[in-house]
């Protein structure tokens, strides 16, 4: 095995390193321009201007208008604001949500909560390639359906959903459409008008911005109530002193990500495809989860028969490579991924899945190194596990 000093990070769907230019953009807002944007004095006005500029940049990056961006503390809160915000407009009235089995826990747990207080939720299934059937969504619509929430790109298997088509159905039926675009923004072009969505969630730390910041795009005219209450910040939808440094960093990261869309996706796609080819050439009994083409360019979710994911992850970690089993959020739990479950993956494979999510800094050398390490890792674990002597 090649010897390296540097650790290799290939878990960019879990989180990303902050771009040094983003840190530079943030720094003045900690110690110098530290005002509260609600304050009338010059310190406050500096903050208010930074906030407005940042809002413009984030809006730009997804083809929205400044007033349509509500800053939040991250993707989870954005998802909650979209779903709870629509459902809470009429307290006590039973309403219906359509979502998919493949959503992130931020959407699924929120739906579970909404169900627990009396609402109805339809979870549409996905194909064995991890794509929802638009017809299923159409058929699920009822008179009391108020919102459809389907993620743009999946965090585990990287599949991209047909949001444009779903948007037509939503519009025809006068139902709101929300999409969790936490994994897609910055990885592939995302334009709110092209997608036709009413709401869209973004998380800064997935696109080389700081953690603890995100946004919900809310199309003008969308009626929403807040989830948390306080002073009237963020058009009354998200009170609390704004995290100016974080927001400025998020905005800078959004702008950089947008610029890089011209080259990054193609480059990552090449690395990813090379990796898949090498793995299939050198390891038996392996599967690529998700869709062959309708997927994020940086995602490879692979399952190996008779190998357990956490053990693989740890051996790779010892070899200096960071990857993930399924989603970061479920790494600690022993449950098989609900996403891999939902695509009906063979039980012999489901526990042996790892997600490799490439980033800007990854190179072909690193991909080669990973492929080699994977080969050794799988061989070693199969030697420990296989019921027949190998």
């Amino acid at each position, binding site marked *: 095995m090649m010897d390296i000093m540097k650790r290799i990070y290939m878990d960019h769907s879990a989180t990303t390193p902050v771009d040094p230019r983003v840190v530079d953009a943030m720094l003045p807002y900690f110690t110098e321009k530290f005002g509260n944007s609600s304050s009338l004095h010059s310190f406050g006005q500096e903050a208010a201007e930074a906030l407005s500029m940042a809002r413009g940049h984030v809006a730009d990056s997804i083809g929205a208008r400044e007033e349509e961006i509500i800053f939040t503390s991250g993707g989870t809160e954005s998802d909650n604001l979209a779903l709870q915000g629509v459902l809470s407009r009429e307290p006590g009235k039973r309403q219906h949500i359509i979502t998919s089995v493949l959503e992130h826990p931020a959407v699924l747990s929120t739906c579970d909560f909404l169900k627990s207080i009396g609402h109805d939720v339809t979870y549409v299934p996905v194909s064995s390639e991890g794509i929802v059937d638009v017809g299923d969504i159409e058929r699920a619509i009822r008179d009391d359906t108020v919102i459809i929430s389907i993620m743009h790109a999946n965090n585990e298997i990287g599949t991209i959903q047909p949001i444009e088509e779903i948007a037509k159905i939503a519009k025809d039926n006068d139902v709101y459409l929300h999409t969790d675009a936490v994994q897609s923004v910055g990885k592939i072009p995302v334009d709110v008008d092209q997608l036709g969505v009413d709401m869209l969630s973004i998380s800064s730390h997935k696109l080389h911005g700081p953690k603890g910041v995100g946004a919900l795009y809310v199309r003008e005219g969308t009626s929403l109530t807040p989830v948390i209450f306080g002073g009237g910040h963020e058009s009354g939808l998200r009170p609390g002193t704004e995290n100016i440094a974080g927001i400025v960093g998020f905005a800078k990261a959004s702008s950089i990500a947008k610029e890089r869309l011209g080259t990054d996706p193609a480059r990552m796609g090449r690395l990813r495809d090379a990796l898949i080819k090498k793995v299939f050439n050198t390891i038996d009994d392996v599967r690529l989860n998700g869709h062959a083409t309708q997927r994020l360019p940086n995602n490879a979710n692979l399952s190996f028969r*008779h*190998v357990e*994911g*956490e053990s693989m992850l740890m051996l790779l970690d010892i070899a200096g490579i960071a990857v993930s089993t399924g989603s970061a959020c479920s790494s600690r739990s022993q449950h098989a991924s609900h996403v891999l479950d939902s695509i009906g993956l063979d039980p012999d494979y489901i526990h042996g899945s790892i997600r490799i999510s490439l980033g800007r800094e990854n190179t072909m050398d690193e991909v080669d190194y990973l492929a080699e390490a994977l080969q050794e890792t799988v061989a070693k674990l199969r030697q420990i596990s296989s019921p027949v*002597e190998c």
Partner: protein
Amino acid sequence: MYSKKIIEEFTNPKNVGIIEDADGVGEIGSTIDGDVITVYIKVDDDVLKDVKFKTFGCVVAISTSTMVTQLAKGKTVEEALAISNEDVQDALGGLPKGKDRCSGFALDALHKAIEDYRNKS
């Protein structure tokens, strides 16, 4: 979060393998649950002369498997049955919180192997 000892045992497991002519075999778990541990024992004059395992599972499953086989090897059947989950965990320098679900599986598999041996003999 894993102790040094766990990582060491996990990366260099001892007693991996199958005993073709085992006196007892114990298997626990299923591929659906994500852990399958099989323990093989060779008994001679009431002493576990050899103990081997095959484990499909997570870091804890593998490291407890190798630790259980090491602790059991050379012990009498009674002594082996007296090995507690705590003994295994202590020998591994403790388990991280929330990871004890499968910590007893390897020991269970050993017990099953001993049961199998007793049923046979």
